[in-house]
């Protein structure tokens, strides 16, 4: 088991009351595993079923493996422009 830091922004940071989360993951975990772990937290009730995740500043699919040094962020629906 290792711990990864997940950056939070905008509405997600408000939902969790913090700019980041520490999430414990088993070795070999994927983005999908991370999302399931986050979805199990009470503060995630307002999140969509499959929130977008970025790994190393790129959108990542659910099957992407997470490395211990990866930069991970949970991305709320974007609203630029």
């Amino acid at each position, binding site marked *: 088991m290792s711990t990864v830091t997940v950056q939070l922004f905008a509405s997600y940071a408000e939902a969790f009351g913090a700019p980041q989360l520490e999430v414990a993951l088993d070795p070999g975990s994927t983005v999908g595993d991370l999302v399931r772990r986050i979805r199990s937290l009470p503060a995630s009730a307002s999140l969509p079923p499959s929130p977008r995740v970025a790994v190393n*500043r790129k959108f990542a699919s659910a099957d992407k493996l997470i490395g211990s040094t990866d930069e991970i*962020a949970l*991305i709320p*629906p974007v609203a*630029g*422009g």
Partner: protein
Amino acid sequence: MKRSAVVTRVIDPTPLIAEVKSNEIGAISVFLGTVRDTNDGQSVTALDYSAYTSMAESELSDIVDEAETRFGIHSIIVEHRVGELSLGEVSVAIVTAHQHRQPAIDCAGFVIDEIKKRVPIWKREHYADGSRVWVDPTRRSGATPT
């Protein structure tokens, strides 16, 4: 000239137009997104934008590269502002230049559409009653695009 950035200062399109001007081009297209006073029937008094800046700048750079390839345009400037903006202020500027008008116009349209899909920037509307709400385009019906 090809560049993109997330900025915290006022966006002035005039110097951006000057940057792409040359004797080789025959068309400059300028798109400006501005802060309007109503959205979904609510009276808006201001907006604040925030970003995952490093990723936003990476995505903007990718979009500009894709636009260059797709439209054969080598002069593209994109600036997106973050922070608190008042009504009427410019939130995003896209300036494109080409020998002919259609690629310049189409390129600007492509860039703003892609920004709205994939650049991690968020906006919070400030309403006249003092409340503030993060805009979620995926939950809106009949929302009017910027």
